[in-house]
């Protein structure tokens, strides 16, 4: 076996300077000169942030390795360092073979150019030779399913076509080492599947793939091995199944379901304890992938051991940026202001479709007594699921394929009043 990647003690420090913060993210020469003239006295306070802090690992040729971890764990920085986009502050990595990195689909696409022209431009940016593109041209067009529009400027493409073409180019790169960021979370479900299959083929051809994803499903499907990063360090490295388990808390098989088999391990106090939390799709099946258009049900199974209290089961959802999207309290009229007798309960809430934004959501399951308010349990990251926005045009994104910010993504009625110019 040969090594494809050897990383030793990689570290990357970012200076978050006061200068930079003052000017909406960039430094001006004027400020730099003024600061210099004022001398060291007025040296701006800078915060040091180690995005990566001593990461070492080896990857054998032909391995498909998933990189997982929370936002801010250093995944993207690691990919950027290995892709040579940014330089490490410390450490060394050796890459054996041609490297292609795919941190975004459609990098460098120009709206005025036709599909054909963009294939060549994007291919060249990604490091393909012209004759390599020539050779793969038909396969790319075929994969993207855009034959008819290949000589149309891409600004006239639908968002789906655009993304398909962009991915198709990237999918036909032929490097020895492929570094991929979360780019598969685009396109409709069918196309996503096609992309995943393509990536798997790449792995099977003996090429090395490094793959970052928030979707544990994709990681488990694609990778034999996973590396878990936390605060810039490797905290677990091994078979994907086990590392994903570590990431989600031990013993989890699916991130959409978490079960505490016995009272001793279960979170809880004298009044109640938690047995299980589950995420169910519209069909009632446990699922960690939810179409943005369909409702999702979160279920909390708990046991009341000491009766006579009014209980407030509630869920709080956090997104990838650790923002609390909302808290929802049990408003079931049946049990509102009604003391609960001992027994087993299943409390469910259904979040409507076309409400949550795309991305990963982490569920905190909690229960409090109303009077006096005593927290019985509050289990952060009990379960997680992923909301996928299709590009079929009937979601809040309409025909827009680019990024859409916001913690929720509702479909809202719009009206327009029009008056021609006099």
């Amino acid at each position, binding site marked *: 076996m040969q090594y494809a990647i050897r990383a030793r003690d990689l570290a990357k420090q970012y200076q978050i300077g006061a200068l930079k913060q003052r000017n909406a993210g960039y430094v001006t020469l004027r400020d730099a000169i003024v600061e210099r003239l004022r001398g060291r006295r007025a040296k701006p306070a800078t915060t040091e942030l180690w995005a990566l802090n001593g990461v070492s690992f080896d990857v054998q040729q032909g391995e498909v390795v998933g990189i997982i971890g929370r936002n801010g764990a250093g995944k993207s920085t690691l990919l950027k360092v290995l892709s040579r986009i940014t330089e490490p502050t410390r450490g060394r990595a*050796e890459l054996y073979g041609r490297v292609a990195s795919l941190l975004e689909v459609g990098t460098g696409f120009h709206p005025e150019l036709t599909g054909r022209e963009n294939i060549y431009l994007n291919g060249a940016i990604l490091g393909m030779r012209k004759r390599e593109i020539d050779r793969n041209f038909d396969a790319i067009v075929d994969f993207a399913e855009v034959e008819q529009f290949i000589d149309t400027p891409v600004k006239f493409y639908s968002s789906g076509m655009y993304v398909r073409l962009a991915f198709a180019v990237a999918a036909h790169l032929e490097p020895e080492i492929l570094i991929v960021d979360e780019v598969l979370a685009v396109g409709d479900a069918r196309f996503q599947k096609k992309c995943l299959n393509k990536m798997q083929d790449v792995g099977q051809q003996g090429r090395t793939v490094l793959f970052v994803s928030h979707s544990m499903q994709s990681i488990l499907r694609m990778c034999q091995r996973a590396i878990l990063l936390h605060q810039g360090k490797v905290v677990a490295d091994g078979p994907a199944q086990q590392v994903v388990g570590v990431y989600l808390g031990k013993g989890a098989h699916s991130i959409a379901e978490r079960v505490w088999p016995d009272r001793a391990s279960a979170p809880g106090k004298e009044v109640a304890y938690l047995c299980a939390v589950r995420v169910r799709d519209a069909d009632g099946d446990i699922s960690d992938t939810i179409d943005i258009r369909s409702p999702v049900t979160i279920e909390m199974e708990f046991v009341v051991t000491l009766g006579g209290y009014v209980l407030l089961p509630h869920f709080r959802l956090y997104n990838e940026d650790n923002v609390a999207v909302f808290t929802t309290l049990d408003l079931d009229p049946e049990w509102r202001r009604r003391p609960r007798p001992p027994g087993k309960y299943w409390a469910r809430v259904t979040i409507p479709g076309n409400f949550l934004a795309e991305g990963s959501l982490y569920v905190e399951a909690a229960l409090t007594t109303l009077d006096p308010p005593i927290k019985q349990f509050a289990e952060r990251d009990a379960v997680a699921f992923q909301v996928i926005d299709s590009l079929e045009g009937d979601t809040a994104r309409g025909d827009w394929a680019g990024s859409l910010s916001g913690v929720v993504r509702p479909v809202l009625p719009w009206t327009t009043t029009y008056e021609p110019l006099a």
Partner: protein
Amino acid sequence: MATLEPPSTSITSTPSSASTEMSLTPIIIEPRKGWWQFNWRDLWAYRELLFFLVWRDVKVRYKQTLLGASWAIIQPVLQLVVFTIIFGRLAGVNTNGIPYPLFNLAGLLPWQFFANTVGQAANSLVGSANIVRKVYFPRLAIPTASVLAGVVDFGLSFLILLALMVWYQWPPSPAVFLLPIFLLLAMITALGVGYWLSAINARYRDVRHATPFLVQLWLFATPVVYPSNLIEGYWQLLYALNPMVGVVEGFRWALIGTQPPSMLLLVSVTTAITIFFTGLLYFQSVERKFADVI
């Protein structure tokens, strides 16, 4: 509420450090040391990208504007008209019998090539931020492409000069075959200034506002609207430090047969080469930071 704190256990140890046979030269990633680590190998490997970037710039420029290619003609024509009225008629600049429009355009063409490409190059890195942040390739390709793409505009504008020469029945001088050399000198200067400005601009975003001003001042330090013989004595030496003086003088000589450039041309050439290499040096010394600051 505690966040997920994964226990720091290693499930399996990472592969042992037993040496393996390496058939390829690896790509080494580590902090760069020293001031001259130019990666010629990569630059060569990405030569096709340079071609595609130039091709994109040209294609997009002529596709986007309503007037298309005519833009490269209208702009210098308008400028020529303005300069002819102000400097040729009103100020009555003495051009030794050469019709003023001809005199002016022969200098205006290389000047516009320089001014336009420097402007484009200065903003090129910041304008390509989305690519710089996401893909690796030699960054030098970006400002270089901006300058090379300007050659196409130059070629189109050149047609006006040809038309003007026919109109005035002014034959080119025997030195016309040296024209490419002076264009090359203009390119080297533009590349050098472009490397400097694009790199500074990536770091200090307010430089963008200073660039047009710099170019404007530079125009008046270059014999575009007036003949260089207005400058006398020791000032000539200082004047020749501006490489565009050599370029414009050379163009006029090669095209319409003004006085051949003096030995001071060597001063211009030297500055041009100095700007080019220092620009290259500065660019590659800050290149590694681009993705972090853009």
